[in-house]
């Protein structure tokens, strides 16, 4: 039996490996980006930036910001000065990666901290490397204390801008010098040829010179390509989308100040695909009795003060409720909220998979919702963002009976073949394969 398939199979065969390299698309893309970036840098427009601080900031906002602020106590302690409190950096690393395990070592400071925060366990971050943590720590240091006169903050961006300008000017100067030298060189050559008595060709002005045209075309092509790609990738994404809603509903007041559990209103998140927006009757469970707002002053994003009581009245209008009379749920009218988080039709996303089976915190994807008066889209909801999380997040491998069928992984974990701090990530059990989300 001949194997005609295998001939071309050999060429493209790697696509059918169980852990297909195409899932690395994102990293390829970043390589490409870097390449283009360096090319652009070479060509004169400088995009100099502090990569590690940038990393630290990103890492902080994706991993820590849900529970920690730098200068303010939140779900967890304020992180400013954390390195002073934890003189031993290795301990700090261990704590961040796996706080539960570290608590078991009996470290006094850690246990006190744990007790101080009502035994709220810190999430595990096995995906963070020591370097990542250091980057986060570095970032924390750069954040100015509140009330301080922001001397660093006000000068830093200027300095950055100066730098790039400086590099730009330098490159330009060098380019002009190079051009002049080239001209000089060619003139000299022409002279020497004339001297030797040979005939010279008519000089081609440089704007008609093929090499120059080609050079400029390549530059334009690369720059244009870079901008187009970047723009195209951003299409359809709406990070930080923060529409005005029919009722000024403050998550900060409800979930933050009043500590209402997310799942009280969004119970669907643990049952099915959708994290449903609560129906009017759910609102009225509490608001039958809570008729006016007496909390801290609340403001819209534009800084206009909002009268909370008036907003509750708006709810009553939808609910068809008058204070003092019984509430009839059947008379209620639905509220037309503006949807913030939109996924394309070809993406299947199931909340219960993440909330119930994966035990992922709401804040991981929705940001620090307890601090948002008006909700905005925290993550960009891009595929790269999803995939990156699937690469680093561990499944409930030991706790969930479903995974008992992965006998080999269990053995490997026991024998140490699989790094137990990295554990079994979503990717490891196929969580980055196409048909986990697209079907």
């Amino acid at each position, binding site marked *: 039996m001949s194997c005609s398939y295998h001939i071309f199979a050999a060429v493209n065969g790697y696509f059918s490996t169980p852990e297909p390299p195409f899932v690395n698309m994102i990293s390829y893309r970043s390589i490409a980006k870097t390449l283009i970036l360096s090319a652009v840098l070479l060509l004169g427009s400088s995009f100099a930036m502090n990569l590690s601080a940038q990393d630290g900031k990103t890492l902080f906002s994706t991993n820590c910001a849900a529970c920690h602020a730098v200068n303010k106590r939140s779900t967890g302690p304020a992180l400013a000065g954390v390195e002073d409190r934890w003189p031993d950096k290795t301990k700090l690393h261990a704590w961040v990666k796996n706080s539960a395990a570290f608590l078991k070592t009996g470290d006094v400071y850690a246990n006190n901290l744990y007790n101080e925060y009502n035994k709220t366990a810190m999430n595990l971050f096995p995906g963070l490397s020591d370097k990542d943590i250091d980057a986060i720590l570095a970032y924390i240091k750069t954040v100015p204390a509140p009330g301080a006169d922001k001397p660093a903050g006000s000068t830093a961006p200027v300095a950055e801008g100066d730098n790039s300008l400086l590099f730009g000017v330098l490159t330009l100067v060098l380019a002009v010098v190079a051009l002049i030298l080239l001209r000089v060189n060619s003139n000299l050559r022409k002279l020497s040829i004339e001297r030797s008595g040979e005939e010279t060709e008519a000089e081609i002005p440089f704007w008609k010179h093929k090499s120059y045209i080609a050079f400029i075309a390549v530059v334009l092509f690369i720059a244009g390509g870079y901008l187009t790609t970047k723009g195209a990738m951003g299409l359809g994404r709406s990070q930080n989308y923060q529409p005005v809603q029919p009722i000024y509903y403050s998550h900060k007041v409800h979930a933050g100040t009043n500590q209402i559990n997310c799942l009280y209103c969004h119970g669907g998140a643990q049952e099915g695909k959708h994290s449903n927006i609560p129906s009017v009757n*759910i609102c009225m469970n509490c608001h039958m009795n809570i008729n006016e707002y007496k909390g801290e002053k609340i403001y819209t994003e534009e800084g206009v003060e909002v009268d909370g009581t008036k907003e509750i009245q708006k709810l009553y209008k939808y609910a068809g409720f008058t204070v003092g009379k019984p509430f009839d749920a059947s008379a209620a009218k639905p509220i037309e*909220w503006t949807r913030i988080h939109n996924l394309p039709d070809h993406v299947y996303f199931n909340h219960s998979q993440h909330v*119930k089976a994966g035990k992922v915190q709401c804040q991981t994807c929705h940001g620090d919702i307890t601090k948002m008066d008006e909700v905005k889209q925290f993550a960009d909801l891009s595929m790269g963002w999803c995939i990156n999380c699937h690469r680093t997040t561990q499944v409930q491998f030991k706790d969930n009976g479903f995974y008992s069928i992965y006998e080999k992984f269990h053995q490997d974990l026991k024998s140490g073949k699989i790094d137990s701090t990295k554990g079994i990530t979503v990717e490891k059990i196929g969580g980055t394969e196409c*048909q986990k989300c697209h079907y």
Partner: protein
Amino acid sequence: MEQKKIWQSFGELNQSEAFNKDVKDEFKEELTFVAEDDKSFLEAKAPRRDFLKYLGFSTAAAAAAASCEMPVRKSIPFANRPEEIVPGVSKYYATTYVQDGDVVAVLAKVRDGRPIKLEGNDLSPVTGGGTSARVQASVLDLYDTARLRFPTIDGKEVTFEAADMSIGDAIKGATGAVILTSTVTSITTKEVIAQFLAKFPGSRHVTYDAVSYSGILQANELTFGKKAIPSYMFQNAKAIVSLGADFLGTWLSPVEFAKQYANGKKINEQNPAMSKHIHFESVASLTGSNADEKFLHRPSETAAIAAALLSAVKGSEISIADKKLKEGIEKAAKSLIANKGAALVVSGSNDVNVQVIVNAINDAIGAYGVTIDWASTLNYRAGIDADFVKLVEDMNAGTVGALLIHGANPSYSWFAADKFNAGLKKVKTSISFNTKLDETSVLCKYVLPDHHFLESWGDAEGKSGYTSLIQPTINPLFKTRQWQDSLLKWSGAAADYSAFVKTYWSAKVGGETGWDKALQVGVINPSAALAAVKGSFNSSPVSAAISAATSGKKGGPVEIVLYEKIGIGAGQGASNPWLQELPDPITRATWDNYVVVSPKMAKELVKIDLNNNGQADAYEVNPPKPCVKVTVNGKSIELPVLIIPGTQENTIGIAVGYGRSENIGKAAAGVGKNAFIFAGLSGATVSFSADATVTATGEKYPVALTQTHSRYGTAQGNRTEVMKELSLAEYMANPKEILNDREEELKPYGGIEKYEGQGSMYPVYNRPGIKWGMSVDLNSCNGCGACVVACSAENNVAVVGKPEVLRGHEMHWLRIDRYYSGDMENPNVVFQPLMCQHCDNAPCENVCPVAATNHSTEGLNQMTYNRCIGTRYCANNCPYKVRRFNWADYTGADSFPDNQEGIVNDVVLNMNDDLTRMVLNPDVTVRSRGVIEKCSFCVQRLQEAKLTAKKDSRPLEDGDLKVACQQACPTHAITFGNANNKESAISKVRVDNPNRSFYVLEQLHVLPGVTYLAKVRNAEEEKEAKAGKTEEKKAEKA
């Protein structure tokens, strides 16, 4: 093993030039950008400049479309959410599919308030969770845009109150009111009718079935004193003889019988035993194709055969002129006698005398009390032809004052529709309760549309003692009312029908709690299985029946048989696009009816000799088929001809159910011709066969056949090796035949065991958790097509319409291939469902330039639509031809609004109507133009099942999931599950059936994920001789 000659098409049998050319290409279309040989590229049909223009335009257009601002989307929650409803989570409600007399207990999958899929109800002992293509498709009827939306009087919209007032007055004065219905299986509806009849003295109820079973009912009245049909128990029969009864396809209760029949056909490899089924028929049917042995006869010989079988069973000599037929009858008799007490004879004839003779045979072979049970009767059909004939006469005589019609459509299906219509004009008050403005309703004064069954309350007792309840799964979409409510109202009852049903059943099942429980499970069964009842057979009418039956005149030179198609039935399925596009299992044709003729008749009639390569190719390759004019009793229609081996040479067949009014839906408009006009009265019953004259018209008409699509042939493996079939005798003699064959074939690669590793240069990959696998038992599969429609419903598979099927663009993810083996006149037929095989070493994956198709660790061959750029390399490289390309925007999913006009036809556009789209499964992407799609193993169900298990913190179990085709199958031919789990059903099937298991095109080392269990036919040795004959024929030609 000496491969038997197995063929799908005539071209394949003859190895014709056109066939060999055709199988090389996946797609029929030429490449657009290729220049003709002698011309430069610029002069090509679409030269490079055009290409660049298109490219530039589409890039600009895409950019323009994409850079539009993000639309603002609203999220509107419930005002007051019902506690049990979670948005995005499906609920299943037990209800019942009812269509005229047909009853199948089902579960309706309700998603966010709308039913989107029907599944069989496992708790029903009658169907055992099976369904049919029609059941699967019926959910689409709910969202049919042609449904009547409000009551009318003389075509003008009125309210129900106004209609009630008007009718109330009219009915009071009317004398001789008649309720005309199709068979009513509901006990409570019968009560409601009884109340109405009591209220209006002189009124009566007439039952009319489009395809009548009057013959059986009356024969049983003569011989058993009961005008009823007993239960048949095919599972108890070791010998089955069918005289033209298509019990697996359309006869009485096919879902029930298919399940029973498959029981006798599933074999245990260690101790193989099968029932033996001998079939007599005139035109190839689904049941005949599944028979172990099949004999052909003329329709006019039916009675003679029955009589001969009776005398043969009693041990007398028989005199039948046709030698083959005589042998067949003797063989059948021998088999029946040998299995006395475990044998069964059924007949599809509507002749009372034939059915009396069949009863006598069954009595002689001890069928009563074993394979035929009088303990419960089958209530699917109850119409007596004479009653309806009398009604038509009364109407014409003007003695019918009011006619209330539900379910019946005689203006279409009665052979003398003119007479009925004339009578209807004389009826003062004519009221139709039909859901659509069908041929009869359009002639009625009052039209009060009924609910769809998914909006209704009710009950259905298809088999006495076994009731299935109907509950609404959605609020009525339109201003419709259950017809029982109308009757109750007019008879002055206070309660409405839903209360009526509840009161009636609460009293029987133990009050409110009992009712709730019954409604939850959906079925009410006898507490213990009923003991079989023999009944007392009265043999006195038999001799009269024999002489009456056999004295009939001889048939003419050409006879016609009218038959029902599995999807369309008597016309009920005609407006359903899913059913129209479901290829007929035998002819593989869609969207039409036609005249079925034998190869021999084709030679004379339309001058096509199938053994002549040129003629066979011309017939087979070109969609336009020659037309003939068929005349019966002075009425004639013109239809195209299809040549179907297995048809009696003097007989032609035409399917009923076509030529419906365009009022019932876009799908029915202009499709086929009405063949009911060829029926006629024979004695007191309607006969569906007659003498006919056929003449070629010289015209041609295109028929959308799918048989010649998706063919494949290369040196590495062509169709003949896809199918494995052997006789029981062969299997007994050498059970390891197939296994040894495989072993030998794979020997160079280390044999079956080591083939995966040694047959290829690729590494072997571990599947650490789940490895999905499927197995299809070809012994159980009868080709009914329920799975095909179920797949379309579950996976939002697009309907493409006839013009697109003609071009080979059908989208079905799962098709059922029909294979012939043996001689051309009366071949054996085997069906093989073929879907994506989810190869572990898939050739499609390697050639995708954008990695849109690739493999998962769970063994799924994944297809990612949003990554696909439509090169179609994968489809071209798939040896099974199961990948489908979206040639046009069938679903309206593209971002460009105008690219459907003039490209897809009305039926497809209608499928994109907002109402029809409510049937879509929200968990499955609706594909847009330009991408490939294919079977995903219902990945949405797999993911859901895994999630359920994860939420419960336990390993996945077999019971967690069924894929759509598996769920729909009435014979449980498909097993699916986690092959890594030793305890799963799929692992067990593979371990228990090592001898019959095979992979399709295993030698390619594509490592399919689907195993097939070879078809074993309980036929005798003669097979070899048949195969030999074909070889001879071929040698002659060469």
